[in-house]
């Protein structure tokens, strides 16, 4: 029995060592001074945003836009396709974000039309248009929609991460969030002013080069429509000039000019290979952004510019007309965006273009900024409350249960050490509710000891010998301890799954604390009792 006990004691000592190592042994091993220990400790425990200050953003990717864009492009391609195969029809237009209507196909070509479309676009389902004798509705298949949405989400997350990383903040977090509503969470610890980050994130970076259809700009949307008889031509769209604070130069449009441009862009941001800020030669004192296209895009751009010499090329950034220079000659793969940018503005724009365009625009759903002084306050309050509650419990246990109380105290302190070490090892984040979880663990953890001790007292009252009383006490109490821990851990599990940030921190602290408590109050307490009983003289009373 004695050697068994020695092994158990050794095991517990090993656990303690591993915990202490985890808490103060990294990253500097071994720590050479008190300062070293403190800095190791603060590096091991990751603090949540509410304790270190920082910004938390929830944004939603408008994936529907990407789906709609794909439908637009498919519409364009089908137009070309049907023309190439000389299939006649009356009208081809977009019905919804995912549907295209082919209206009144020449009756003898119905079959051919269907085959041609089905061949080229297996992702699209073709069905007869209701109420028409010779028309089709081409619908994007649900699997393609889902795939496109997922792809958009992934690309958006990737792009945002690249942009945030380029800002050089410490340990930012960019990750999908929530249950399937296309949300992304961005956390910037230590960043008290989120405005620059937000504008960099949100910058669509949607660069598109379109052919400008009409020669001149219109002063308003109504005027543009009026000159086309009130309806826009099917292959055109209206775009507004960007609102500029400074006085517009010759080619920079003011916000009250509207342009009629080709619906489908000849080149988009995806075709960019690089984009850099350079000092402007035209607008001295300002910066421009030079960009280079990929070879494949260059192959399209060259002929396009050649065919359209004399017309204007609209540089549309985020659905606003940035500049509209006249095409003077063939351009293969370089271009410049002028806009009287300041240095940081141009750099940010280059960054945004380089990181790739966001495949769809994003909307902010939630923004929380915790100032660092609040974080420091919270830590102070949390730590003070923990220490006081620990002392209260310790004093009570020793007074009420005498020497066995000391047993409970040791188990409780070990409980907390294991809890903190587990948080450090798993890289779990400690939040302010997490500290509350630690305090709750103190209160609920001591419950197990109380259960056991009360049972032991009951057995002792029944005139059992100390050894038997301890044995029975532990055995009888064990099941109840399991029950009580399970219910609270189940609550914590729910909180973890459905909760965010601070709530999760609470769930993790509580659950880990209770699990550690199972170990300390049952195993460790028992070992201490056994050791004490082994050393106790036979006739002595158990101090409980």
């Amino acid at each position, binding site marked *: 029995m004695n050697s068994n006990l020695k092994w158990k004691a050794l095991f517990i000592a090993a656990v303690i060592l591993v915990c202490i190592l985890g808490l103060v042994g990294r990253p500097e091993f071994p720590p050479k001074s008190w300062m070293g220990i403190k800095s190791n400790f603060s590096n091991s425990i990751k603090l949540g945003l*509410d304790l270190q*200050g920082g910004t938390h953003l*929830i944004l939603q990717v408008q994936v529907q836009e990407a789906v709609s864009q794909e439908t637009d492009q498919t519409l364009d391609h089908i137009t070309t396709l049907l023309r190439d195969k000389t299939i006649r029809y009356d009208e081809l237009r977009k019905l919804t974000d995912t549907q295209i209507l082919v209206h009144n196909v020449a009756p003898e070509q119905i079959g051919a039309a269907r085959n041609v479309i089905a061949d080229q676009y297996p992702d699209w389902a073709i069905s007869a248009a209701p109420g028409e004798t010779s028309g089709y509705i081409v619908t994007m298949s649900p699997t393609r929609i889902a795939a496109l949405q997922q792809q958009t989400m992934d690309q958006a997350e990737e792009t945002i991460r690249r942009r945030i990383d380029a800002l050089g903040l410490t340990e930012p977090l960019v990750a999908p969030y929530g249950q399937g509503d296309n949300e992304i969470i961005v956390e910037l610890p*230590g960043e*008290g*002013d989120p405005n620059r980050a937000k504008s960099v994130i949100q910058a669509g970076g949607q660069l598109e080069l379109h052919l400008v259809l009409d020669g001149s700009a219109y002063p308003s949307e109504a005027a543009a429509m009026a000159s086309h008889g009130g309806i826009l031509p099917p292959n055109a769209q209206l775009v507004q000039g960007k609102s500029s604070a400074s006085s517009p130069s010759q080619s920079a449009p003011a916000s009250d000019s509207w342009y009629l441009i080709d619906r489908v862009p000849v080149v988009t941001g995806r075709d960019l290979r690089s984009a850099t800020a350079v000092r402007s030669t035209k607008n001295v004192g300002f910066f421009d952004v030079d960009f280079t296209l990929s070879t494949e895009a260059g192959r399209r751009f060259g002929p396009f510019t050649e065919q359209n010499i004399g017309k204007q090329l609209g540089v549309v950034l985020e659905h606003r007309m940035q500049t509209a220079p006249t095409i003077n000659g063939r351009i293969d793969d370089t271009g410049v965006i002028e806009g009287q940018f300041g240095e940081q503005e141009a750099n940010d724009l280059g960054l945004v273009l380089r990181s790739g365009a966001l495949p769809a625009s994003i*909307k*902010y*759903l*939630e*923004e*929380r*900024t915790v*100032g*660092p*002084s*609040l974080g*420091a306050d919270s830590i*102070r*309050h*949390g730590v003070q*409350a923990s220490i*006081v*509650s620990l002392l*209260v*419990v310790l004093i009570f246990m020793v*007074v*009420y249960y*005498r020497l066995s109380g000391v047993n409970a105290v040791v188990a409780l302190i070990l409980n907390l050490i294991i809890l903190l070490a587990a948080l450090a090892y798993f890289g779990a984040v400690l939040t*302010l*509710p997490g500290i*509350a979880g630690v*305090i*709750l663990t*103190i*209160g*609920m953890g*001591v*419950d197990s000891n*109380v*259960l056991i001790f*009360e049972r032991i007292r009951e057995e002792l009252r029944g005139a059992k010998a100390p050894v038997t009383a301890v044995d029975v006490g532990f*055995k*009888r109490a064990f*099941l*109840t301890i399991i*029950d009580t821990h*399970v*219910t*609270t*851990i*189940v*609550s*914590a599990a*729910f909180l973890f799954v*459905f*909760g*965010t940030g601070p*709530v999760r921190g*609470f769930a993790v602290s509580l659950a880990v604390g209770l699990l550690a408590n199972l170990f300390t109050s049952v195993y460790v307490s028992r070992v201490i009792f056994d050791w004490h009983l082994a050393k106790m003289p036979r006739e002595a009373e158990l101090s409980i």
Partner: protein
Amino acid sequence: MEFFKQVDIDWMGKAKYFYALSGLLLVVGMASLVAKGGPYYGIDFKGGTVVDVRFAGTPPIDTIRNGLAQQGIGNSTIVPVSDIARPNSNEVLINIEEKGEGAEALDAGKAAILSALHATFGAGEPGKQDFNAVGPSAIADVLTRKDPLSAGAAAGDRYAQLSRQIVSYRDKDRGGIVNNLDELSASGASAGVIAALREVFYTSNFAIINVEIVGPKVGSELRRQAVVVTLYALAGMLVYIAFRFEWVYGAAAVLAVFHDVLITLGLFSIFHFEISLTVIAALLTLVGYSMNDTIVIFDRIRENARLMRREPFHAIVNRSINQTLSRTILTSGLTFLTVLVLFVMGGQVLRAFSFALVVGILVGTYSSFGIAAPLVVAWNQWRGQGAAVVTSGTAAGNKLRKT
């Protein structure tokens, strides 16, 4: 030392008093909820903008309200932050409700509040930035460019560390507000450094401590989620207890927990505490805790039912409660003490959360012997089983008991 040596109280006889007490608490709570038009939701559930601002002196609330009105924000609520631990904290919460799903930016409210504050409380000198609003990287940038300590090549690191020191002093020691840049000498900044900072920064007399903006869609979504999670958790526990004991025990336990949550919500309404996400976390925890307590008593009832086969059921229940009384009072007492410490000392951010726990532990403990046990007894009596015929749970439970 022992508090409860041989207790013998007739708990079940007092059942009607318990029901009356619970009834009273529930009615009062519900009345308050109805009178105040529902629970007092925080922005987590309502959506909106909250900006926490700390001032160097007493916050002039009327001036703030006028300043906001001039920015076009008519319906703001300004609440001073008062803390039991720190009654004069010079802090206010500026609350703007979310008007709707507009296309306007999420932080339009915050931007308006900031411009109102700057306009009303001095934009300082033109071209200068507010020192109380910047982070260490901005300060390090300025110092590196001016290099007052002639650090040369090591400037970057040197000033980065100095800036962190300065900001830490401002935030930890001065609560986020420095009234005059000269005060920074206490943080280790030399006169030259302070002079360099003075060229670029001014000090306002307020600092933004915390900003929370929640869009309305998120708010209602979270509200729905909170209810769903709570119901799921309750259902899970019902199943667990039904598995360990019997369906009637499960139902009684769930009803008791429901009762606890309702009373807690009622008290929240009466004391006008805000319901936020962390409060929901506290509620779920108290669900778990109340179940805890109830299980301990049910456990003992099951054990005694086998030992005391001839006695009437309510006597068994009485005995079980009496036997576990010591343990119940002790643990609840200790846990209660710890959350009370949290309530008093935990700071304003956790106040509502710890209030939920304080109330929850009291009510949760009470409901185990005051509601759950009497309900089981009532059920048994209604089924005409005055004698102790209580089938005890599953084989697994029996097996483990056989030691």
